[in-house]
């Protein structure tokens, strides 16, 4: 029923109205004195020394790519972990094979120097 979604509608309206108020009030009430220091991006107290939009060393990308690969394999560990007690030795062997293949990939990546910094 459409009326079932009424709470969601109310939430959306409240959130929008609050956001508008929160942004409009300071603009109307507060003084606006822009200085150079205020306009700089916040860098956790560090003084920024260059523009952030520049080329990063390629190693960042290699690490990022490898991270995605090894990270996503965890989704197969979750259902396996839930069922491990029923699967017993069979499940253990299956997962050992799975991780063994990943390990070969890891060793290859390591030996090829992709993790060197």
């Amino acid at each position, binding site marked *: 029923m459409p009326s079932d979604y009424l709470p969601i509608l109310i939430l959306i309206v409240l959130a929008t109205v609050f956001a508008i108020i929160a942004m409009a009030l300071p603009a109307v009430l507060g003084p606006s004195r822009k200085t150079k220091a205020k306009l700089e991006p916040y860098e956790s107290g560090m003084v920024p020394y260059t523009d952030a939009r520049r080329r990063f060393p390629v190693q960042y990308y290699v690490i990022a*790519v490898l991270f995605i*690969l090894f990270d*996503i394999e965890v989704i197969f560990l979750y259902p396996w972990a839930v069922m491990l007690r029923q699967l017993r030795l069979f499940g253990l062997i299956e997962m050992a094979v799975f991780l063994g293949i990943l390990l070969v990939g890891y060793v290859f990546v390591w030996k090829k120097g992709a993790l060197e910094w």
Partner: protein
Amino acid sequence: MTAVPTSFYLVLSALIFVIGAVGVLVRRNALIIFMCVELMMNAVNLTLIALADRFGRLDGQIFVFMVMAVAAAEVAVGLAIVMALVHHRDTTNVDEINLLKG
């Protein structure tokens, strides 16, 4: 609150899929085209989940796990290829990638 009917999910995912497909066709940046492909795949994931729930079966959900793993591998390969190309051509615009005749 009653459950959302399955057809809602199917229509939503069809829309997301079309948005992704149109994005692939109109955007010119290789990375954004790639993100649009990911959008298409995730639209399919939504379809599969909705259908699996409707049928009360697990195979659709398992399919989604596989798609996610494949998509991750695709990201890795795709980013590596884009990096290799930027190394040569210094651009990710597919209109400037034109050494081959098309």
